[in-house]
Structures are given as C-alpha cells and as structure tokens.
C-alpha cells in the first residue's frame, strides 16, 4: 500500500471507529470494545509498518485558501515522526488490551473505547502534521479527547472538575500557541515545517525570540510545565489506562515532540528560557511527589518531573552560530536526548501506570498507598514488573531510564552547570519517591482489608505489562532500535573517556543517595501505620512541601475568585448599565408604541371607516394648505 494512503488510514480508521460507536454502538459495549481493539491492532501494525518499512515521505494538499493564506493538511513523515508514531502505536495497543480487563465492568465502556479511538486519531494527526496549523487542529483534538476521557466517570464531582481544569488550563497555553503560529506566519510567510527548515538553512530568515517562546506556551500547557502544571495531577481522576496512555506516555509528550518539530525556529534566548522552565518543573514536581499518598498522584508528579527533564534536554541542545549567513542554529543534540528520554519514559511510565492500575484493581480500587502494603506476596507478577518500572525510572544501571537520563545529565553537564546540579538533585529525589512508593505498596503487612484481599488480574492485565516491561529493560540500548530511528537516536550526545566514567559515577551516587534515604526512612515498613514516617520525623519539611504543592492551586484560585471574578462582575455591571440598558430603553419605546397602535385595531369596519374619514379630512386640510 502507498505509505501516504496508509498514513491517512491511521487517522481515518480510528475516527471511523469512534463515529460508528457514537452513532450505532452506544449500548452495544462488547461490539464497540472489539471494534476499538481491532482498530488499535491495525494501528500498531500500520504504525510499525510505516516506521520500520523505511518509508519517509511528505505530501500535502491545500485545505483552505483565504486570499494568500493557505491552510494545508499534509503529512511529514521522517525519523522523528516514525519514532513518535511507534510509541503511540505500542503504548496505545497495550493500553487498549489492558482496558479490556480494567474497564470490564464499566457501564459506559463503549464511550470509553470511542474516546480512546478519537485520541489515537488526533495524536496521529499531531505526529504527521507537516505544518503548524494542522498540528494546532489536532492539538486541540487531543485536548478534547483528554477532556472526554478524564471525565469518563462524569457522575462524580472529582473527574468533572478535573476535566474542566485540564481543558481550561490547556486553553491558556494553546492561546499562546495560536498567537505564536500567527506570528510565525506573519514573520516567515509560512508555517510549513519543511519550508521553515529550508529558510533556516538558507540563512537570513527573520529570527524572533517571541515566536519560539509563544509556541513553547503550547508545550507548557500540553506537557504541563510550570506554571501550567496544575492540571496533570488532577487529571489522574480519569481511568488509570487513560492516565497511562494520555497523561504519561503520549499526549503530554506531544509538547516535547512539537518543540522538536519547531527546532528550526529556536534562538538562544528562547532555548535558555525553555531549559530553565524544564529544570524548575523537574525539581518542583519531584518535591511534590515526595509527599503524595495516592499511588497515581506519585506517578503523575513523577511524569511532570520527567517531562521537565525532556524540556530541559531540548533547551540545552548545543548551539552553533555561523556568522556569514546570519545565525544558524543547530540544536540536534537536544532533540536527540529529549526524544530518547521521551521514548524510554513512555515505556516505563506506561508500565508503571498500568502496573498501578493492576494494583488498584487488585486492591478493589484503593489508591492510597498507606492502605496497601504487603502486595509483593499477593501480587507477585505485578510486583516483578512494577519493580522493573521503578528501577528504570530511578536510573538503575542497564535499564532504560539509566541511559536516557544520563544522556540528559551529560548534556546539562557540558552546557549549564547550574541546571546540571538541579537535574542531579531531581534524579536523587526521583529515586527516593519511587522507592518510597515501592516499599510502602509492596512490603510490610496489608494496612487495609482491601489490600489484605488483593488478587492478581488475569492474562489480560499481565500481557501488556510484560510487553512494556521488556521495552523498559531494552529501551535504553540505542543499538537495538531499528535503523529507521537512526535519524533521531544518533543525535544523542555521547559522553566519552573520563566524562563517561564521571557521568556513571554521578548517576550511581545520585541513585544510591535517593534510594538509600528511602530505604533508611522506610526500613521499618513492617510497623508502618497510615501516617507517613516522613511526616513524623520531619514535620516542618513535610508541611513546607505540602504548602509548596498547594501554592499554585491556591494562587490560581485566589486569582480566579478574587481578581478575575470581580473583574467579570464589573464588566457585567457595565454591560447591564450601558449596552443592555440602552437596548432596553429603545425596546421599551417601541413596545409602548406598539401598545398604542394595537388599541386602534378594533376589528370593526365602522371604526375603520371613521378613521378613513378622519384621514380624508386631514388630507383635505393639507391640500387646502391649512397646515
């Protein structure tokens, strides 16, 4: 099959499945589920075929023409897109399979699977988009599907509020994104990624700091960077497989993918801002993760933190400035490291989330880690796979996270020492909070009835976990990747000689520091109560971390309630007084006139005749010149 036809099918088929489900299969849950899983299987096959088959193409056609503005829909399929597409395909497939078990009893299964299909289609659109307008369209569509899926249990207040928060927070970032696209079009005359790249190579293109920073706003919203990170932890109200697919592995990574797409627009100032935003997000989220009690919230903050890593990696990419043909910028190393970590993170974070889904399912929907405990005995298989995930994210040697995190740390070490220190600290905290959660969940004795009666899910739970666990182990070896991804993975900067040893030592120190503190603090796990030992031993630290976590939410709610709401009320008052007031006076006058005229209309012929006579008299008087 023609590659671009297949690419089109990868968008059309999931949309078709969702449309079919929405129009005919709303109540036929089994059929809708089957359809959606078949689509995910087709998608996986198609994505891998495209990515590994070596097909790299670009095609586009004009969708909307307004004067000299042409909005195109087109496909740009290069190594970057191939890598992202494979991740979406693999994780999407695993999540579909896992959902079969996890959502088995759900009364609205059809809607859930239709939502997953819409998400797959919109994510594919972002991956394939060859211009920023098209990317924006699908960008909004993933936002929509995220909204629908967070809000899956819409009867409850939590998911409802979380979905609204996610949607509205994303709108803030997307507004900047849209302005950035328009500004880019204004300055460069095109938003086509390949044309932008050609312009950058030719030199002399208008360089602007505003464009990349405005476009970065989109990534700040979607990838939940500071200060728009507030929606992601709340988004955990959605079903756990959704958190794995959308809020860990793919959609939130779309921001990093988008940054890699627009690398040609970058300027040094913008990159500095981006790397600092990423670093601050990484450390902030790691601090918040330390005190979480909800297993999914720990993972959510850890996702935030890892996304911060990727954004930093992108921002730290090396810059080469050629003076003859204007500033030419090469930031490939950043793209390589960011995408490499995105890939490994997608695998081990999806593994962790699905693992937590398995745990939550096993513990009868208990999410508080202090009410679990002792699961290493009752859920052996999940325990094993979860351990692989924890080790991978903590940077345990020879697992996926170790390599990708080291690549980023090396990049930071060679470009910006301050960020390097922050990232190293974050890595230590990552090891700490992951191992803290791992100990509390799996060791000691069961701290609630639900945990005591924990049971392992069936094959449908374990198979996706197994796939992801294998990928989380091998994902770090770039040599094992098919050559189709070389264009991206070969960009990862490699430490050489003594630096390599240095990096190894640093990452081992960081890992053992974090893990050591966690083991020391939670060693008495057998006697653990429902109170966090961290809170008991360091109450001041604990309280300040709680404050830190809540600072953004309380700041935003203060702003919304006290500033925005009052401003809105003021505007409302002026609206009532001015516009609506004038309108009402005008409308009132005409309505009064209408009352008068209506009284004249009595329906009797004689009365009309009198009026007629009156009119004739008036006419006569007028003709006679009396007035």
């Amino acid at each position: 099959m023609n590659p671009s036809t297949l690419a089109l099918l990868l968008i059309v088929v999931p949309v078709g499945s969702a449309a079919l489900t929405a129009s005919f299969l709303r109540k036929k849950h089994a059929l809708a589920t089957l359809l959606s899983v078949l689509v995910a299987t087709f998608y996986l096959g198609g994505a891998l075929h495209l990515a590994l088959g070596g097909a790299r193409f670009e095609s586009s056609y004009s969708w909307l023409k307004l004067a000299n503005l042409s909005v195109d829909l087109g496909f740009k399929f290069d190594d970057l897109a191939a890598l992202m597409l494979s991740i979406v395909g693999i994780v999407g497939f695993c999540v579909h399979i896992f959902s079969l078990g996890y959502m088995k009893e759900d009364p609205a299964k059809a809607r859930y699977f239709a939502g997953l299909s819409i998400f797959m289609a919109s994510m594919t659109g972002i991956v394939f988009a060859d211009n920023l307008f098209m990317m924006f369209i699908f960008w909004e569509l993933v936002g929509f599907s995220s909204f629908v899926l967070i809000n899956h249990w819409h009867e409850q207040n939590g998911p409802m509020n979380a979905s609204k928060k996610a949607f509205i927070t994303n709108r803030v970032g997307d507004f900047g994104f849209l302005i950035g696209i328009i500004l880019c079009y204004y300055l460069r005359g095109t938003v086509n990624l390949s044309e932008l790249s050609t312009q950058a190579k030719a030199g002399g293109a208008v360089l602007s700091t505003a464009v990349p920073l405005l476009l970065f706003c989109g990534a700040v919203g979607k990838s939940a960077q500071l200060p728009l990170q507030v929606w992601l932890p709340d988004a955990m109200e959605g079903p756990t497989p959704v958190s794995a697919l959308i809020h860990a592995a793919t959609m939130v990574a779309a921001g990093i993918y988008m940054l890699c797409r627009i690398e040609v627009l970058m300027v040094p100032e913008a990159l500095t801002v981006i790397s600092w935003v990423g670093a601050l997000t990484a450390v902030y989220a790691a601090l918040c993760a330390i005190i979480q009690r909800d297993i999914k919230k720990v993972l959510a903050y850890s996702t935030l933190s890892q996304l911060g890593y990727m954004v930093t990696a992108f921002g730290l990419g090396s810059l080469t400035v050629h003076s003859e043909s204007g500033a030419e910028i090469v930031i490939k190393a950043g793209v390589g490291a960011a995408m490499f970590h995105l890939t490994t993170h997608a695998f081990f974070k999806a593994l962790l989330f699905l693992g937590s889904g398995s745990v939550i399912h096993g513990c009868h929907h208990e999410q508080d880690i202090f009410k679990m405990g002792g699961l290493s005995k009752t859920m052996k298989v999940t325990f094993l796979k979860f351990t692989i995930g924890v080790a991978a994210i903590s940077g345990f040697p020879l697992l996926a996270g170790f390599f990708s995190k080291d690549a980023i740390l090396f990049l930071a070490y060679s470009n910006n020492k301050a960020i390097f220190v922050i990232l190293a600290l974050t890595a230590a905290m990552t090891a700490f909070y992951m191992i803290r959660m791992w100990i509390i969940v799996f060791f000691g004795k069961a701290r609630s009835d639900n945990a005591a009666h924990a049971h392992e899910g069936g094959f449908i739970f374990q198979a996706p976990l197994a796939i992801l666990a294998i990928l989380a182990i091998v994902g770090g070896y770039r040599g094992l990747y098919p050559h189709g991804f070389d264009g991206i993975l070969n960009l990862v900067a490699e430490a050489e000689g003594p630096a390599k040893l240095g990096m190894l030592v640093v990452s081992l120190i960081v890992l053992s520091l974090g893990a050591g503190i966690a083991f020391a603090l939670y060693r008495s796990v057998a006697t653990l109560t429902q109170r966090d030992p961290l809170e008991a031993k360091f109450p001041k630290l604990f309280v300040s971390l709680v404050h830190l976590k809540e600072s953004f939410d309380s700041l935003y709610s203060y702003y919304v309630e006290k500033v925005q709401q009052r401003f809105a009320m003021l505007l409302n008052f002026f609206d009532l007084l001015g516009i609506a007031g004038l309108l009402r006076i005008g409308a009132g006058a005409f309505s009064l006139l209408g009352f008068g005229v209506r009284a004249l209309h009595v329906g009797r012929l004689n009365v009309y005749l009198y009026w007629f006579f009156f009119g004739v008299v008036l006419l006569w008087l007028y003709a006679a010149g009396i007035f």
Partner: protein
Amino acid sequence: MIQSSLFAYIGLSAVLFAIGFIGVLIRRNAIVIFMSLELMLIASTLALVAFSKYNQTMDGNVFVFFILTVAAAEVAVGLAIVVALFRQKQTIQVSELDSLKH
C-alpha cells in the same frame, strides 16, 4: 335662471352624497352600506351632469357614461362578494365580520 337651477342640482347632489356618506358610516348591514356607496357615486354623477349642462359642454356627460359603466361592473363584483361572504359566514352584519381582530 340656469344658475339658480344649477344650485338646486348641486344642492340635491350634496344632500344625496351626505345621506350616502352617513349611511356608510352608521349602517351595519353590508348591502345597505353598499347601496349607500352607490348613492354617493350617483350624487357625484348628478353633479357632473349639472355642470355639463351649465357649461354647455359634453365633458361631464362623457364622464358620467364612463362612471356608469364602471359602476355597473363594480356592483356586479361587489354583490358577488357580499353573496360569497354570506355563504361563508351566514351573516352580512359588518359588526360580526371581525375576524381580522379576533
């Protein structure tokens, strides 16, 4: 002599017109109103004939011929409307023909 008879004719015409006009205004029966209208028309033709005689020209008489022709056609149409109205509503009292309002 001629002048005084002109006044008499104009006076008769005015009286007939006034009677017709009052009839149109105060009567409730559609046929009577119609007759009153015709009376007004005839009053005006009477005045035209009188003026024609007074001026010793045929202009007025020619007018009258046309008016009578048109009036005959108008009566035919008007009476047909009244008959149709009666068939529809079983009444020709204009006070009851108020479906525009109610």
